[in-house]
């Protein structure tokens, strides 16, 4: 079978373009850049970095089974997560940088975790819809008859 050569840049563009189009329409309808957008963006980066890092530390246990349980990667990942937490702590503590409408550092961090869980749920449900629709389209077509004598 001939394998088509598709650029990954085109794939990224296909994923980004619809979001950019909807946001452009949003702008054209009169909405300006929301003043909390940067804070939300920064909090989303730091929180998802720390949460995905913790999930990957759990994954290291499976990796360790086939490698005589090395300690070094575990320490490495724990340090990486600790750096992420320290950066989050420093940036949220700095007034009006990443602190949204919350009373303080602890409230903001807890809100970030819950917020990321909600975002993750929305993205997971959207993935079910998109992947499911793709497979529905693939299986929806009638099967091609490759060899006539098979059914005779």
């Amino acid at each position, binding site marked *: *079978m001939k394998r*088509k050569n*598709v650029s990954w840049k085109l*794939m990224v563009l*296909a*994923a*980004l*373009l*619809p*979001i950019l*189009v*909807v*946001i452009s*329409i949003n702008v054209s309808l009169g*909405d300006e850049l929301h003043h909390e957008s940067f804070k*939300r*963006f920064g*909090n*989303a*980066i730091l*929180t*998802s*970095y720390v949460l*995905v*890092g913790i999930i*990957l530390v759990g*994954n290291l*246990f*499976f990796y360790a089974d086939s490698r005589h349980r090395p300690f070094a*990667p575990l320490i*490495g*990942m724990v340090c990486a997560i600790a750096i*992420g937490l320290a950066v989050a702590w420093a940036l949220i503590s700095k007034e009006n940088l990443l602190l949204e409408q919350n009373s303080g550092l602890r*409230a903001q961090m*807890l809100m970030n975790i*819950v*917020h990321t*869980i*909600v*975002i993750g*749920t*929305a*993205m997971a*449900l*959207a993935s*079910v*819809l*998109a*992947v*499911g*629709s*793709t*497979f*529905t*389209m*693939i*299986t*929806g*077509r*009638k099967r091609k008859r490759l060899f006539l004598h098979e059914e005779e």
Partner: protein
Amino acid sequence: MLDAAIWFWIPMLLIPLGLWFSISGKAKVLGNVVSILGLALVMASSWTVPNSDSSAAGHLLLWITAPTILLCYGMHGAIFGGNVPVGRLDPSARYSGYGAVFLSLLILCLMHWSSLTPLWRNEEINPYWIVFWPTFLLFSTSLLSLAALALVSYGEDRGPEAVKLAAFSVLMAGIAIAGITFDGNKIAAEQFQDYLWLAAADIFGSLIGATIALGVFAAVIWGHEKSLPVPSNTEPPTNDEIKHVVNLAKKHIVGEEE
């Protein structure tokens, strides 16, 4: 704070813990029970700890349970009612699947534009609903567009199916544009415009953060593997060892020569 820890955060931690036990195969049944129990307690948190702001997330999860189950059921029927080599369902499952997917999307739309909107404390709109809804719309629009291009690029003669996926992507974008144009039951169009901005910031931020974490993980593993000593080559087998292996092989090979 203690109540929130007991009734929301500990059950929330039980969900991944149970999944970890289940996936690792160490205690599959126990893991599933722990996860389901944790999820049920999180969903019930708006009654058990109504004063905690975090319980709004549990309330939202409870509200979207019905459309989520309907969507998963519909997708299962629509996929396995088609031409699949194993586990094929009756062809009518395909149409009931389409119906279930349509109904789940309709329920989600009604949660925005009709009285089904999730209301939380003091009859106010659940703050996480207006985070979930625009994120779901934007991300599904994006993924469906990606799927359409992937199908037409990697598949053989998949043009018509790719067009249908692209149309579905446009439909989801249309729902998002309707949200920023027409007022919902409890959410004004201007308010939805703000949340659409924030949803885009959330999606890009979350994806970038997860990518950085994966990059760091890859770097840590690569660094560790690189630091390991190269395994030394073993000596070739001696004549005695070769004779021993040949003898063993002869003992276990049966059959007559033609």
